[in-house]
């Protein structure tokens, strides 16, 4: 997956975040979103026990006891707060995070997400993924459109283990933005010169196109 695609996705998700929101960013593409927020201030929650996570510190200020959930050194914003893991997941599961931006292995056409386990492979990690899926007020999936082997990630029905019955609200890929509403998937806009036909081909899931859908090139 190319850096420019990752940046494109991160920038588009950044647009969705509102000033002052409480946001939890998953691993992968979501972690670079803060670079594209411009002047918009959002408050980053890190599930290992920090609200108000700031940027990577300079080498001299690195403290491996001030880290993100990806175990990378971070800093603290003004007004940040520290808490333990049970209080952190009280926030997450209790619906106090405005938006979680997560990666996904698969998303089905109702918005159900699979983001923790690959069938047939060793499953030895779940982390906070399921808690975020269950609890965040809004869930945005930031993901490449196709998996590494070229197969569709956005599918009719999950073949990978589900992360929970709670559905995603939106998915942003390098090609398109889809919204989920009452179990249906809608194309909101395209982000590349892909045609709707080509998009349908690389998207196993069935999606609806609205009149107001912004198609970049067709």
């Amino acid at each position, binding site marked *: 997956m190319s850096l420019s695609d990752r940046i494109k996705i991160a920038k588009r998700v950044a647009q969705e975040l509102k000033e002052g929101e409480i946001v939890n960013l998953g691993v992968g593409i979501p972690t670079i979103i803060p670079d594209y927020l411009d002047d918009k201030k959002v408050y980053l929650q890190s599930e290992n026990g920090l609200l108000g996570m700031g940027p990577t510190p300079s080498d001299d200020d*690195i403290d491996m*006891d001030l880290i993100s959930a990806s175990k990378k050194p971070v800093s603290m914003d003004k007004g940040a707060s520290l808490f*333990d*893991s*049970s209080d952190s997941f009280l926030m997450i599961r209790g619906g106090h995070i405005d938006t979680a931006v997560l990666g996904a292995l698969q998303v089905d056409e109702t918005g159900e997400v699979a983001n923790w386990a690959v069938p047939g492979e*060793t499953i030895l990690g*779940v982390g*906070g*993924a399921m808690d975020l899926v269950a609890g965040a007020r809004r869930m945005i999936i930031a993901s490449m459109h196709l998996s590494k082997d070229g197969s569709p990630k956005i599918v009719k029905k999950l073949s990978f283990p589900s992360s929970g019955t709670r559905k995603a609200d939106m998915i942003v890929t390098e090609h398109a933005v889809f919204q989920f509403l009452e179990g249906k998937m809608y194309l909101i806009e395209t982000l590349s010169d892909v045609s709707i036909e080509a998009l349908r081909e690389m998207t196993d899931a069935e999606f609806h196109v609205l009149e107001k859908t912004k198609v970049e090139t067709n």
Partner: protein
Amino acid sequence: MKKRLNPANALQFIKSGDTLLVGGFGLSGTPLTLIDELVKSDKENLTVISNNLGEEGKGLGKLLVAGKLKKAKGSYFTTNRDAVKAWSKGELEIELIPQGTLAEAIRCGGAGIGGFYTKTGAGTKLAEGKEEKVIDGESYIFEKAIKGDVAIIKALKADTLGNLIYDKTARNFNPVMATAAKVVIAEVDEVVEAGSFTPEEVVTPHLYVDYVVVNQYVKKGGRYIESI
């Protein structure tokens, strides 16, 4: 004054076959000195409840390669390849539990709560075999409280009573683990006089802490390194 022990003496409270609650998120907030003592010891068949198993050859990862572990219960072991290998070879049992469920179950273990219903994981593979309950129209799954025989935790400082404060995100699972084991041993960088912390500053009140051990590592460049 809370009983202060040297690290080797702290091991008298741990038996082979025990279930240990071990603080930490990755290596941060992990009782490295107590783990080193366990590696050197004759304890075996331990069950470790901890978010991760450290890193390869570091923290709880050391205990794994030393062959001391029978089972690990936590949320994320994928990044320690030794854990994946040991599991594949059938040398290590693994029980996976979502991170928030792990934290809450330990808190309940310390709180006289027998179990709870969480939304996390409802409808997933991790809910298989678990009781489901619909409460006010939403699906929840039952999770039993978790307790340990011994908790080994890491704090920044203890006072002479045993009150603890933590260092930034090194707090993580340590305060809940301090409530949920029969014996709680806190490894700290420094012991200060009682009264050094304001009543508002104390994160773990002293009644949870049985013994205090001083960390043998030193912090340099933001990391704990072995002191020579």
